[in-house]
């Protein structure tokens, strides 16, 4: 049965290869010795063969180079043949790199991987770029143009010219022209160019307007090029730098917003337990940690049972983390905190002890090392917005933070539960007299704050370590935000978080991360001196409660 399957697979591969355009190319045989050379001579030998392979200019080499990049190219130890090997169970399935003909299976010990290092990786993307400029796929041509832009490989100049002449897509042509300008300005051709040509090349690069263009122009301005080239490049550098400085300021603002939303997420649960209930909850950070570990568990479940749905794991983790952290919160409130209302010092010590106990418990269960929480595909990577680089992960966290904030606000202002919370906070005996079960409200409020901390844990698991110490890093910041914003006021927490986040990010480039943090602390100390009740102080009777 198994053999029959293998035969079937082999037949399939043969059919596939016979239809593939690459195999039909008569030049395929010429590449054989070059492909063979990839497997010998260590990194430098591979690199030399690779250069020759890409200089041959035959697109048939593309799948071979791609296999090398992916780490699928191996040397068969028995006869030194270079093969493509893909892992199938314990053994490898071998195919010929050029013809893709099946070469049977081999145990892992019979093949040796052709290893690549950074310099080879650079060479690979350069040659793939040069070889795929004429690809029928616009996306491939685009990335080919970018690769050539980076490698500035003069041998690609001819193909590049032909590709530009043929190119219909505007964006791709622009990228190709930038690549050509890059090669011309940095290569030997620059000395033979007229002033107008040099000017147009630098203009093309200035129009690109990003950091890569700046790198290149800087390189030209500092190189041994002719004076006129240098001058033109230097002028372009200063225009570009001005533009980038503007974007850098905006970028900083975004960083501030993003840090602010992380602070907001961490603090918002505390705004409920500390701000509304007045419990100095030192174990707040551990609720965040429990949320993060819940995310880990949910992801493990998805990995084991439904790997195809992994992208949804975070969405499942949200309610799970809310319930788990909230549940732990309620248990803590019922077992410890309710005996300590009105005794802040004891609460502080008890919750601190609890935080240590929870940390050690998690350490004993999950081990002291970090746990890997993966990012779903829609949360990884970045996109460019004008001159801004915005990472998807951070963007979602900003959106999430504001959503949680809004939801909490609605819950407190518009629901029966929220009304009971506010009633108990403002006047406990009266609320009791009106038939509200204050003890239950207390437990649920604490559960709500803890649950929100759990939600924060889900978000933080995407940007920080999932380790038993996760919470410790946020507890101080959370208290800072709540106290600065004004205890008992959710809007204060929002404004406080964003202010501190932005301030931190604007101080950081000038003062460094360490001094920046100190300066923020000093600012808060001075601020609290002047306004002991924070930004948005509560007025009236509620203050005394």
């Amino acid at each position, binding site marked *: 049965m198994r053999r029959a399957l293998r035969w079937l697979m082999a037949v399939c591969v043969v059919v596939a290869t016979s239809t593939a355009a690459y195999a039909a190319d008569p030049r395929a045989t010429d590449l054989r010795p070059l492909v063979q050379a990839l497997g010998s001579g260590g990194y430098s030998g591979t690199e030399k063969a690779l250069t020759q392979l890409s200089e041959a200019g035959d697109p048939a080499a593309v799948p071979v180079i791609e296999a090398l990049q992916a780490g699928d190219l191996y040397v068969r130890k028995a006869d030194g043949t270079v093969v493509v090997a893909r892992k199938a169970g314990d053994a490898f399935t071998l195919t010929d790199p050029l013809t893709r003909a099946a070469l049977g299976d081999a145990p892992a010990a019979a093949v040796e991987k052709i290893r690549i290092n*950074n310099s080879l990786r650079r060479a690979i993307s350069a040659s793939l770029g040069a070889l795929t400029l004429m690809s029928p796929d616009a996306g491939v041509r685009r990335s080919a143009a970018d690769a050539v832009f980076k490698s500035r490989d003069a041998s690609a100049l001819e193909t590049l010219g032909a590709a530009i002449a043929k190119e219909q897509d505007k964006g791709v042509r622009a990228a190709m022209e930038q690549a050509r300008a890059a090669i011309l300005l940095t290569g030997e051709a620059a000395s033979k160019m007229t002033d107008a040509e040099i000017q147009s090349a630098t203009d093309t690069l200035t129009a690109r307007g990003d950091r890569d263009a700046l790198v290149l122009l800087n390189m030209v301005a500092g190189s041994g090029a002719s004076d006129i080239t240098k001058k033109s490049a230097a002028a372009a550098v200063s225009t570009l730098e001005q533009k980038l400085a503007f974007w850098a300021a905006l970028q900083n603002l975004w960083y501030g917003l993003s840090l602010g939303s992380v602070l907001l997420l961490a603090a918002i649960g505390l705004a409920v337990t500390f701000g509304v209930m007045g419990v100095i909850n030192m174990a707040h950070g551990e609720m965040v940690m429990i949320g993060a570990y819940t995310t880990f568990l949910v992801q493990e479940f998805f990995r084991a049972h439904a790997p195809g749905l992994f992208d949804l794991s975070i969405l499942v983790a949200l309610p799970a983390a809310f319930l788990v952290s909230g549940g732990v919160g309620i248990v803590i409130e019922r077992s410890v905190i309710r005996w300590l209302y009105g005794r802040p010092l004891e609460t502080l*010590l*008890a919750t601190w002890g609890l935080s240590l106990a929870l940390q050690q418990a998690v350490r004993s269960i999950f081990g*002291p090392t*970090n746990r*890997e929480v993966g990012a779903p595909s829609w949360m990884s990577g970045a996109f460019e917005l004008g001159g801004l680089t915005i990472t998807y992960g951070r963007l979602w966290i900003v959106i999430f933070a504001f959503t949680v904030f809004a939801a909490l606000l609605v819950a407190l202002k518009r629901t029966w539960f929220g009304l009971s919370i506010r009633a108990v906070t403002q006047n406990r005996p009266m609320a009791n007299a009106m038939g509200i079960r204050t003890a239950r409200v207390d437990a649920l409020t604490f559960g709500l704050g803890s649950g929100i901390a759990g939600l924060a844990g889900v978000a933080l698991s995407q940007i*920080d370590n999932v380790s*038993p110490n996760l919470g410790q890093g946020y507890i101080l910041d959370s208290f800072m935000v709540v106290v600065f914003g004004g205890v008992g006021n959710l809007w204060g927490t929002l404004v406080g978080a964003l202010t501190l986040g932005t301030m931190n990010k604007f101080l950081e480039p000038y003062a460094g991360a*360490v001094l920046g943090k100190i300066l923020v602390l000093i600012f808060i100390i001075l601020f609290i001196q002047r306004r002991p009740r924070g930004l948005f102080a509560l007025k009236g009777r509620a203050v005394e409660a």
Partner: protein
Amino acid sequence: MRTKQLTSSFGISALAGLAMGAMASFAMPAQAADDTIKVGILHSLSGTMAISETTLKDVMLMLIDEQNKKGGLLGKKLEPVVVDPASNWPLFAEKARELISKDKVSAVFGCWTSVSRKSVLPVFEELNNILFYPVQYEGEESSRNVFYTGAAPNQQAIPAVDYLMSKEKVQRWVLAGTDYVYPRTTNKILEAYLKSKGVKPEDIMINYTPFGHSDWQSIVADIKKFGSAGKKTAVVSTINGDANVPFYKELGNQGVKAQDIPVVAFSVGEEELAGIDTKPLLGHLAAWNYFQSVETPANTDFIKAWKAYTKNDKRVTNDPMEAHYIGFNMWVKAVEAAGTTEQDKVIDAMVGVAVPNLTGGYSAMLPNHHITKPVLIGEVQENGQFDVVSKTSGLVPGDEWSDYLPDSKDLIADWRKPMSCGNFNVKTGKCGGKGS
């Protein structure tokens, strides 16, 4: 007010009692009689450093277990005494004193951070016991009672920089580190070294961040900006512990690829990568004296034993574990040579002892209490392992007093008689120079 103070102090002491109780439960029973040789293990099992140090405790237990299976030492069984200094630096000194005075251990294997080593150093010197310190560190120290089995800066940092300079043609350098003694001293040495190689001051950017720094957005952006000056740029990272994961995540998110700006790290090993998705980090570098991916018979056996001992097929091995492996075997050999576990005799017998390391060679204990090691540079692979791209041809002897710092370039350490000095100044010909 008075009652409040009373209750609070009661609360604290109750809490402390609780904590002590928790710690005591980690300590192994120490009631065995004199027919065993006791070995102290001083690694944090709770608190921030537990993430790194717990593994070292486990590897020590495994090594002791294996030695006992081989028949113990001097005809006696070895008995591990584990204590938990809880990532608390003063507690390290207390626990060290407890191990030596109360448990009467013959040697201690322990510490991770430099500050914990500095904290226990006076205890070991006062009570004349032996400490094996397994982590790469900043150098500028040599004590008669400490054997440094981790890398000195010349066994890790400088070869890494050399590699980047020669193979990657790096001309611009970002020295990024966590703000404490190891990164600061290492960066001082590296800065002096780079300048001696003709790197201009404006091509060096130094950046420090607090412990556990988690928001790297603007620093990574700064690195990108610094890297856009038209010269090949690399980051030399002495960022420690927890801060690494968010740092690497941010690098991946902002698309800083190893082909463009490689990051070489001195504190990131297999263990640290276990918590990260390494696909975006392909090709970033680390410099160590050992990688799990090294293929030697000794290493294959070690990994197999480790996985069997921990009953976990996914456990990884790392450089400080190898350092303990070397240190423990050296101690065993020295005790056998001395015929006793008496500290003075063992210390004298240690110098010159050579044992196999896991990368296919022999490491020897030098008179300055540092060891010889090969230096390996590895690139991060998709599976969280390192692919060795460069290995020094021979062994590099550990240099305790850096030759690149004006304060220490004239100092050497030699604990053999008659010199017996940790900071001998070759210029003045006297023992006792600058430094400790």
